[in-house]
């Protein structure tokens, strides 16, 4: 059974039809990169999966069950945002421990232990007592990943995690994502940075005008694209990379 099963998902904002019938299955351990030009519906799709947008029609199942309306998905889907959305009034450590002590009612010492472990994992052990305002963009995003991991989500969705970062900071973040991929974490990554995901995405989905036009392996999508819209998109991305 697929971990995430999306069936005929539609979503509009007024007269703007953003998702026009998306069908997608994500299996445990998959690392699915979602690519497509701006306005193609990538962010709306992941926001629907995370429960931040309510689809107009269609179904999203997590392990075969509906989860969006009854709170069953709480904590099971982690999300890493483009603009981090760290809690600015908590230190790096507290950004990880607060959800554990407040939501999971965990003992402070146990939460601290998890925070230490995760901060080490994202190489932020020396910044544990710093506030987000004092961290670099890359550090902020790695902290956001650590915070998400603390809740032990079944899947993490990344909404353009590196688009507000310069290339060196983006590299740091992708290194962390790669390490998670090696550990078997299921992930959905919306990104424009094709070169960064080529090495580790198990599948690539190309979204155009709210429909999945191509769904294949990196080789199928990047080496031998047959879809005309995808070819145009890849040319544009290559041009942007220059």
């Amino acid at each position, binding site marked *: 059974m697929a971990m995430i099963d999306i069936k005929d998902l539609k979503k509009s904002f007024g007269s703007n039809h953003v998702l026009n019938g998306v069908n997608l299955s994500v299996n445990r351990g998959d690392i699915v990169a979602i690519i497509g030009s701006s306005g193609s519906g990538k962010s709306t799709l992941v926001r629907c999966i*995370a*429960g931040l947008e309510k689809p107009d029609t269609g179904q999203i199942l997590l392990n075969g069950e509906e989860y969006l309306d009854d709170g069953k998905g709480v904590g099971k*889907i982690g999300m890493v945002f483009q*603009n981090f*959305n760290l*809690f*600015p*009034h908590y*230190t790096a450590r507290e950004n990880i421990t607060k959800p554990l002590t*407040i939501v999971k009612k965990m003992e402070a010492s146990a939460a601290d232990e998890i925070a230490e472990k995760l901060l080490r994992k994202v190489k932020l052990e020396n910044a544990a007592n710093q506030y987000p305002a004092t961290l670099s963009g890359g550090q902020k995003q790695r902290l956001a990943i650590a915070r998400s991991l603390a809740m032990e989500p079944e899947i993490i969705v990344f909404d353009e995690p590196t688009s507000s970062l310069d290339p060196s900071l983006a590299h740091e973040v992708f290194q962390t994502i790669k390490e998670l991929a090696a550990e078997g974490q299921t992930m959905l990554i919306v990104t424009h940075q094709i070169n960064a995901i080529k090495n580790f995405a198990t599948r690539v989905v190309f979204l155009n005008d709210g429909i999945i036009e191509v769904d294949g392996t990196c080789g199928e999508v990047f080496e031998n694209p047959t879809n005309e819209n995808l070819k145009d998109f890849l040319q544009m991305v290559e041009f942007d990379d220059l």
Partner: protein
Amino acid sequence: MVGALRSHKLPKIISFILGFYVEFFRCTPLIVQLFFVYYGMPTIGVKIDPVFASIVTMGLNSGAYMSENVRGSILSVDKGQYEAAKLLGFNSFQVNRYIVLPQAIRVAIPAFMNGFSTMIKETSMASVLPVIELTKLGNQIYAKTYHPFEIYISLGVLYFVMTYSMTFVARKLERKATKWQ
């Protein structure tokens, strides 16, 4: 509390009542409100002690302004904070208590302290009612002694000390609330 409530989606009737309270007290002069409560209410059978009338009217007047400060500061918290908290499993109460309010307080402190300073100064308006407060006391002393310069400068100093001490407290609170910036 009114400001916090008004920053959320409410049933229409509650929203109307709270909105009416805020707009009524913001859009009419304090002196009219004082006269209405003290002189107007007894005509419909509600007789109020002048000190109590002053406290209630000024409390409601100041509350109307401050509720707008609270509302504005809550609305200033980025939508992404709510989204991140929701995804981490925080419920509505927890989001407000642990995520939104600590950030909103930082924004609200300067306006809040400004409101307190204004309220201290506006207590002098109670002198239009039969209430012995600082300004009226000054007037009474003046009527007996005919020393306006000394009396009114003393009054000014007293108001200044009270108001300035609020500014001092505000700076301390601001520093505390913005240590994470």
